[in-house]
């Protein structure tokens, strides 16, 4: 090795004769000090997410109110009653499952599988791995509770509505893709919760949790739309003498 290099490497500590400025640490510390604190940031995210979710859900409910399931049920029942009045007891069962409605259902299901649900789950998994690398002690579960309450009430409301919606065209199995999706989201949610318990609440975990909730709401929304479409098909194709079989979704 170069002898000068060898000499300097072995005396490097003795070369370090220049002291840094006295206020150097103060400057570093002041730049390290976060503006808004972590928890404030998290609360901010949580509040923003809740407002968006509530606004979206409100808008959706308003839209659904116009062409809701009660309306469809009313029309279908009218059709059945008309058929009965015309003297035909049992008409042919309307098969809309093989028609365009099924195509729409498959398309919608495919979109859910390849779209936010599947992609989101994989993405969330990736982020979880990254987040694990930055482990933090468990802290402040109250923000999660706040989000939990607001989202849970929305999801519960939608679930109740779905369970009460009559299915005229197909039984519950026809929509099993959606119910499976929903179960998968439940598992994803549980996984995120476990991660939060283990590593503590971070912005990433909170984002994942909100993502899962939003995906759940999306799946339920798509399911409701699909049921409405199917019921509409029944209404359109219902012969005056037709009598539709009624099922309810078990989700």
């Amino acid at each position, binding site marked *: 090795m*170069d*002898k*000068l*290099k060898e*000499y*300097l*490497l*072995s*005396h*490097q*500590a*003795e*070369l*370090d*004769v*220049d*002291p*840094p*400025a006295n206020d*150097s*640490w103060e*400057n*570093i*510390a002041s*730049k*390290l000090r976060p503006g808004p604190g972590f928890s404030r940031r998290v609360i901010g995210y949580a509040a923003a997410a809740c407002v968006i979710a509530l606004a979206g859900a409100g808008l959706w409910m308003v839209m659904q109110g116009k062409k809701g399931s009660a309306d469809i049920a009313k029309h279908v029942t009218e059709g059945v009653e008309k058929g009965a009045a015309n003297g035909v007891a049992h008409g042919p069962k309307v098969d809309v499952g093989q028609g365009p409605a099924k195509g729409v259902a498959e398309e919608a299901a495919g979109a859910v599988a390849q779209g936010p649900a599947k992609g989101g789950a994989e993405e969330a998994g990736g982020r979880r791995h990254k987040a694990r*690398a*930055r*482990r*933090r*002690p468990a802290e402040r579960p109250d923000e999660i509770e706040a989000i939990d309450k607001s989202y849970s009430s929305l999801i519960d409301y939608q679930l109740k509505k779905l369970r009460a919606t009559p299915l005229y065209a197909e039984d519950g199995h026809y929509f099993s893709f959606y119910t499976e999706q929903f179960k998968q989201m439940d598992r994803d949610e549980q996984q995120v919760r476990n991660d939060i318990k283990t590593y503590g609440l971070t912005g990433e975990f909170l984002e994942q949790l909100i993502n899962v909730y939003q995906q759940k709401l999306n799946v339920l929304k798509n399911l409701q739309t699909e049921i409405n479409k199917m019921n509409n098909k029944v209404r359109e194709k219902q012969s005056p003498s037709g009598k539709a079989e009624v099922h309810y979704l078990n989700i």
Partner: protein
Amino acid sequence: MRLFAFPTFSAFTPLINGVFVTLNCNQDLRQPPNIHESTVVSAGRGDRDAQADLYRYYGTAMYNICIRMTGNASDAQDMLQDAFIDAFRHLGQLKQPGAFGGWLRRITINKCIQFSKNHVRWSSLDQDEETPVADQESAWWLNVPLALVQEEIKNLPGGCREVFVLFALEDFGHKEIARDLGVSESTSKSQYQRARKLLRERITKKVHLDG
């Protein structure tokens, strides 16, 4: 990414120990061996006192790297601050707390390299300056105070100063220097020879003047 060779760590250790002993001179010196690692772990959790301790351990050494690379106190101060801020902000990514010293050193050097890339204008050298002088000269540096060597390293012109520091003090190879600074390998070699020549001339002159 270049890994640190052992000599770099070993050269660095006495300083850490020196500061460590100074910091604990009124306490029990037989601290648990993992005290440094625990300080790093705490600093990673955002503990400001632990971060301040790490700054006290490593600040001077890192500052001296910066001032040798930049040649002036003001830029060195900026580099030092940037390096520590980056290190503390990304400390969670460090898997082995015991490797903090080398990791921080690498961050500091990278900051300085980035600075140099933006500020150094590389001049072309005459062919004769590329001739290696290493084997031609006597060990003139042996009786020179290291503080004077440090001073003259800082006074070297931009370009050859960075190459000299990286090659002779940070144990980089010319290939790595060429890649990191965005110059050719032959430029790195010739700049190193130029720095050696200048150092020798200037230090010898000063030693003669000062007696």
